[in-house]
């Protein structure tokens, strides 16, 4: 039905009252359909996000303003939990650990992913599909299994890594006793698991770049390296921003790998060498029943940090790749 019908005035030879009402009802329905149905189609996401994403966030914010005992009383204390964060040595320790592991895992991981994606994008590579599938395999493995296996590799007494080090005359390293060694061990788990995933996303981005650009560049005499630098990277920017943002969110929320590496002890090493922010939040919020409100404050501090780092990454990546 055309839209003009809705605005057409009733004809002078007025028909009996019911048909026009019926017709106008149909028209109203139709109008509603046009206006509302798009919202209905996208509603499931917003309903689900509201229930599972937004409500918990608000609830956590509400908790963070309380002295909240998980199995007991709640007292409103305003922003005390947030001011307490600034003087909390362990909070800053966890922040440093989180960022340390984040840099150790994200930077090599993205460089490697970029390299692998470029290789997989080459047309002369045989059995490309096989390699593309294989590279994704680590991501399918359960994170706890990865952490357990790597925990065994990095074991002090009978671990494979220490055994290999002993072959070249290096003393056994007590991996979970120092910051640098525990961060390296945990970052290696993250790298192993996520490099393939990022490779595939970058590869998809590369495939979307029109081939004629390369052909034109080749005719103009640009070599592979120059093509990569002048065509691939700039055209890849949106994909790269996406990958960096994903890595930031994942990296700053690191939890399972360090926890399993610490044999399930939430403080992450005897001197909290590798306790991440997520672990510290869990320690306060769940382990330590009486400080759930403070744990919620840590959760919100994490949220702000992730938002800020994502923003910085976004700006950096956009500028440098331009």
């Amino acid at each position, binding site marked *: 039905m055309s839209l003009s019908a809705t605005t057409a005035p009733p004809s002078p030879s007025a028909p009996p009252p019911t048909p026009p009402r019926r017709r106008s009802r149909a028209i109203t329905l139709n109008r509603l359909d046009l206006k509302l149905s798009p919202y209905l189609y996208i509603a499931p996401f917003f309903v689900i996000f509201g229930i599972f994403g937004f409500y918990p966030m608000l609830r*956590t914010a509400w908790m963070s303003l309380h002295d909240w005992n998980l199995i007991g009383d709640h007292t409103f204390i305003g922003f005390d939990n947030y001011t307490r964060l600034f003087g909390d040595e362990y909070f800053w320790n966890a922040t440093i650990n989180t960022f340390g592991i984040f840099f150790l895992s994200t930077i090599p991981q993205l460089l490697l992913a970029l390299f692998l994606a470029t290789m997989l994008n080459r047309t002369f590579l045989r059995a490309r599909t096989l390699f593309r599938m294989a590279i994704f395999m680590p991501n399918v493995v359960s994170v706890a299994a990865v952490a357990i296996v790597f925990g065994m590799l990095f*074991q002090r*007494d*009978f671990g494979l890594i220490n055994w290999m080090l002993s072959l070249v005359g290096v003393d056994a390293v007590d991996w979970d006793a120092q910051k640098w060694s525990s961060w390296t061990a945990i970052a290696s788990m993250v790298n192993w698991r996520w490099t393939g995933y990022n490779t595939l996303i970058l590869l998809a981005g590369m495939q979307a770049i029109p081939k004629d650009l390369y052909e034109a560049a080749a005719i103009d005499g640009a070599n592979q390296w120059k093509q990569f630098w002048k065509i691939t990277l700039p055209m890849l920017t949106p994909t790269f921003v996406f990958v960096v943002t994903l890595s930031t969110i994942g990296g700053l929320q690191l939890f399972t790998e360090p926890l399993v590496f610490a044999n399930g*002890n939430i403080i992450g090493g005897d001197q909290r060498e590798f306790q991440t922010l997520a672990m510290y939040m*869990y320690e306060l919020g*769940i*382990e330590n*029943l009486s400080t759930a409100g403070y744990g*919620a404050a840590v959760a919100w501090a994490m949220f702000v940090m992730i938002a800020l780092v994502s923003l910085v990454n976004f700006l950096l990546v956009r500028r440098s790749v331009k």
Partner: protein
Amino acid sequence: MSVTTRRNRFAVAALAAVTAIGGLAACGKDDDAKESGGKPSKLVVDTFGEFGYDEIVKQYEKDTGIKVELRKTAQLNEYRPKVVRALATGKGAADVTALEEGILNEFKTNPANWADLAPLIADHSKEYLPWKWELGKAADGRLIGLPTDVGSLAVCYRKDLFAAAKLPTERDQVAALWPDWNAFIETGKKYRAATNKGLIDSVTTAASAVMVQQGGDLFYDKEDNVVADKSAAVKTAWDTAVAMSDAKISSKSATWSPEWSAGFKQGTFAATFCPSWMLGIVADNSGPENKGKWDVAPVPGGAGNWGGSWLAVPTQSKFPKEAAKLAEYLTNAKSQVEAFKLKGPLPTNLEALKNPDFTGYTNEYFSGAPTGKIFGESVEKIQPLHLGPKHQAIKENAFEPALRSYENGQSPKDKAWEQFQKDAKTQGAF
């Protein structure tokens, strides 16, 4: 997204699902749990480690027609968050929930979460170790836990490794090696000299043993103030552990770590401290190939209580009366003897402790050691301990990490002590 929000998310998801499906879901659930006349068709029991209930509940099912679902969690530090979650959300707690002594006091601070068992079952107050029975009561007087087992102490040692180090291997001679802790350290030095390995798994297991032997106040005083800096028991345990560390008699394998589990099989250490419930864990970690190589000897410094649990009924259980009856059944004399034979938890029921099946029991895996006799004799000497609300957290997140960081050379003695003091206060805040 944070874990906190993820947990909330789950609760909300469950709620949404229930609301969406409406009364139908609710009905289905009720039918599952309830038979006509309000009698449950099924009761759920939550335990951690090994309680040895597998056979006992089969008999209960036959007698009562009520099915029992045993939900086991391997480690206490995985188990506790599950209980917390169930209490915090008011959903998902088992009808019968086991509470370990390290976490019992924490849960006792909110007694309203637990049913008062006294009116639901017969009076058993005279049938158990008196102090154990008393600890099952909350501050408001309600009986929230029925005693299952106690820890009691012994030393598990490897005969083959002792022989290799030219130490005696017979139980009585081994006991004579260490009348006290100084003698124990001397033995450790001899073992180190002969094998260049640590005698014990870690100084923290030793420290736990020493601490519980001292009795009295540990990390808390009777008013539940943290007194980790003043407590004599804690200081003695700390000093003994430091002396052991200086004498290099441990293999530095933190309990539950991969080094620790592998160490049993590989023989990186020759002895560990065994509360009765630990026997099953030693056997499982060492595997069938080491059967008969382990033995059990008395601990230096006399009896002590390490570990032990109670069975409680959460108020959110739909069938508190039947659940209480089940807890009563699981903790009676007969069940306690059977559980001991199966997995090693030491009885608290006085009749069970006198039962010839218990006193005469020998453990085949541990070279036929008379574990019934060894543990049975020490159990009545145990002094009651007062563990404050956050005992377990202080022990695992403050005391032991500080000791290990000294042993690993990460911090000097006084620095480690300071670390322990600081963490004890924050962990102990309630």
